[in-house]
């Protein structure tokens, strides 16, 4: 833009003034380039290392640390924010403060807020390690604001104090000084500094800077109307610019040459230079275009990449979904399998139980069948006996034999009693198996129950001349269900009588052997039993089959019933017996404590 404006002005105004303005315009253009180049990357990088060290040193100052890092990253806004935060904290030492102000000044400068920058730099104490840099920065700011007089002392100071400083280019400072004097129209001083600068640049082979500085020198002479010198430097700059890649510099030198030739009225030459300048300008534009195209391409590439990424993401998503699906179905299958195995095992278990139950049932059924056959056999015998007896009875009735009648009737009565007891036991057995019968455990006085049971057997015992004695104490009390206790005692007494010889003795008494239990003993002096029989009787669900004594030994149902009922009453049952001497049937029931 500046250049176009320049041409426009050149066309309109008279020569003398025209040149001045032209030169100053070019100078400004050059200057701005200088300002840029004064922040050379290399120097900044070197300085950044220093900053980094400081940041590590003051790690405890979190904001300072952050501000420093942002400063290194050239994130000026963030640097400003964190440096402000750091300044707001109280615990600042001078060094931290100085650094912080430096960050702020530098950042403001970068954001072209020169006044703010100047303020910040001015707050830095003189003890600051890089105070020379501060001076230089202030000088640059002054230069930036065209306050050349103000800039000169700063630049000079800075230059003086840091002759060996690595963190800035001396040549640039010198050139800036030269420019200042140039603007102040102190051409001698300007010349001095520019030459000093060019010497340094020639030493360091900094071609680009040299091009610029030659331009500056040429301008300086040109403004003093020392055209020969000026033209030689313009040409020098122009030639040197051919080695440089910077289009702007090439264009500027070409343009300057065009202006020079024009002024010398060498329009042909001027035209060539101008064309070249145009060409560089185009190149510059082209370069810009190329940059733009490159940028567009890049954007496009990014977009493409983005698309690809999206596509990949979608694919990945799809894959994830697929994988998850597989995973879940695997889990479901596993669960299904486990369940199946579980149920299968359960089934096996159940089957086992069922088989066991079936065996037990078969066993019980067999027992029942056996019981059935024995009972029916017994009943059949009883009824048969009754039938025979009945026939005899009728015979005797006809013949009028009354003595025989009495005997027969007594016999019948005994048979019927036996059959009745059998049926009674059968009934209770059935009720017990189906758990239909009423059962209530209460406290019972044993004596009266024994009396009541014995009462029914008194005539039989009298007949058999069996001596019976109820030795149970009136105070003996047990916990039992009354009806089942009666059934137990009835059966045991019945057995005792059945296995007693005439003139035998039966005693019922209690003994206190087990803690908390009352032992009811039914003792007879009858035939007794072998150990084998005894064990057989005590066996679970052992029904005695017909054996030795057909007349006496019954079904075993009575004793089974006793055992079951004793168990139901929470009692225990035991037998003591000696063959030929007698038997003790012992029922232990929980005692009632008064």
């Amino acid at each position: 833009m500046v250049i176009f404006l320049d041409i426009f002005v050149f066309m309109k105004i008279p020569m003398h003034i025209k040149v001045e303005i032209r030169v100053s315009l070019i100078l400004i253009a050059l200057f701005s380039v200088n300002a840029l180049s004064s922040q050379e990357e290399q120097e900044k990088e070197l300085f950044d290392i220093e900053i980094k060290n400081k940041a590590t040193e003051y790690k405890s100052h979190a904001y300072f640390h952050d501000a420093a890092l942002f400063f290194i990253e050239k994130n000026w806004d963030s640097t400003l924010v964190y440096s402000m935060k750091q300044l707001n904290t109280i615990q600042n030492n001078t060094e931290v403060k100085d650094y912080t102000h430096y960050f702020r000044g530098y950042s403001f400068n970068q954001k072209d807020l020169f006044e703010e920058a100047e303020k910040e730099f001015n707050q830095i104490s003189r003890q600051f390690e890089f105070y020379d840099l501060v001076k230089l920065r202030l000088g640059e700011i002054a230069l930036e604001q065209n306050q050349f007089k103000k800039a000169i002392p700063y630049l000079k100071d800075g230059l003086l104090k840091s002759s060996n400083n690595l963190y800035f280019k001396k040549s640039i400072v010198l050139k800036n000084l030269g420019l200042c004097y140039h603007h102040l129209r102190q051409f001698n001083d300007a010349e001095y500094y520019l030459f000093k600068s060019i010497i340094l640049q020639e030493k360091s082979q900094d071609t680009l800077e040299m091009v610029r500085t030659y331009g500056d020198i040429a301008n300086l002479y040109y403004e003093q109307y020392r055209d020969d010198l000026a033209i030689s430097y313009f040409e020098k700059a122009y030639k040197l610019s051919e080695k440089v890649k910077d289009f702007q510099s090439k264009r500027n030198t070409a343009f300057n040459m065009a202006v020079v030739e024009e002024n010398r009225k060498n329009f042909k030459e001027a035209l060539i230079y101008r064309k070249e300048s145009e060409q560089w300008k185009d190149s510059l534009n082209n370069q810009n275009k190329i940059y733009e195209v490159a940028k567009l391409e890049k954007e496009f590439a990014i977009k493409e990449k983005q698309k690809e990424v999206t596509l990949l993401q979608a694919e990945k998503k799809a894959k994830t979904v697929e994988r998850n699906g597989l995973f879940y179905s695997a889990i479901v299958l596993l669960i299904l399998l486990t369940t199946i195995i579980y149920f299968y095992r359960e089934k096996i278990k159940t089957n086992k139980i069922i088989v066991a139950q079936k065996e037990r049932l078969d066993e019980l059924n067999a027992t029942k069948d056996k019981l059935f056959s024995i009972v029916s056999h017994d009943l059949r015998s009883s009824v048969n006996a009754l039938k025979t007896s009945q026939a005899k009875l009728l015979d005797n009735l006809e013949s009028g034999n009354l003595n025989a009648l009495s005997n027969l009737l007594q016999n019948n009565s005994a048979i019927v009693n036996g059959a009745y007891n059998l049926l009674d036991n059968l009934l209770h057995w059935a009720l017990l198996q189906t758990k239909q019968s009423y059962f209530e455990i209460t406290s019972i006085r044993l004596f009266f129950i024994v009396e009541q049971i014995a009462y029914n057997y008194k005539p039989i015992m009298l007949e058999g001349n069996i001596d019976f004695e109820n030795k149970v104490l009136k105070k003996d009390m047990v916990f039992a269900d009354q009806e089942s206790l009666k059934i137990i005692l009835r059966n045991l007494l019945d057995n005792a009588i059945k296995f007693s010889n005439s003139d035998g003795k039966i005693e019922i008494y209690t003994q206190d052997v087990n803690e908390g239990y009352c032992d009811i003993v039914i003792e007879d002096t009858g035939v007794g039993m072998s150990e084998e029989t005894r064990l057989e009787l005590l066996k679970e669900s052992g029904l005695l089959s017909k054996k030795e004594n057909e007349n006496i030994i019954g079904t075993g149902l009575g004793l089974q019933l006793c055992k079951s009922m004793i168990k139901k009453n929470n009692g225990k049952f035991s037998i003591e017996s000696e063959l030929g001497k007698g038997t003790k049937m012992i029922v232990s029931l929980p005692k009632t404590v008064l």
Partner: protein
Amino acid sequence: MDSVNVLIVEDTPAESDALVQVLTANNYTIVGVATSFKNALELFYNSTVDIVVIDIFLNGNPDGISFAETISISPNASKPFVFLTSSTDRKIFERAKLTQPFSYLMKPFNELEILYALEMAVEKFYAQPDVFLGDQEDTIISSQYLFIKKGKSLKKVIITDIIYIEVEEKYCNIITENEKFVILISLTKILKLLDTSIFCRTHRNYIVNTEKIVEIILADNLIILSGNHKVTLSDTYKDITKKIHTLK
């Protein structure tokens, strides 16, 4: 001493006959044999009944339980009762058991069992357990009667007939207009259960029916009762005079 009145509710004549025979032989008075629910209620309310023997099944229905329920509802009219049953069917028992106090007897039964069952029913009904079965006591006191075990059966004495009671250790001499007999009962229990508005203690060993007092001779510490019975009045119990004055 009077015999105890029993009402039998039983629909099978053979069984009721046997019952009547057994109970009569043991000095119980049978006030009647009911054969149905209705019949039973009539007899129950029209005669003096001390104990009821109820067959659960009347004509195939558990009407016996209904009858027991009916007489249990009115507290003043209710009497001790015993269920007779030939089945131990649990459902029936569960229902019968709701009529408290619950006593039952399984058929067939013998003489001892029925007598025992009657005694148990009286004990349970008057909530004085372990009286007839133990050795310590033989009498149950209701509001109207003393039920005393005599041999195998029960007797009753009308409480208002008692003139005075003389305590001798764990025995009590009961003196009525016509009789004098000994019962087994503790003093504390008799004092607790007798109606205190009628019976008063006059001495460590004497409990007197105040309605039978003829004369009190304070000077001699003597009370003259109807039938010319004389009882000592000790100083400890002289408060009795005030009570009697207010009464007369």
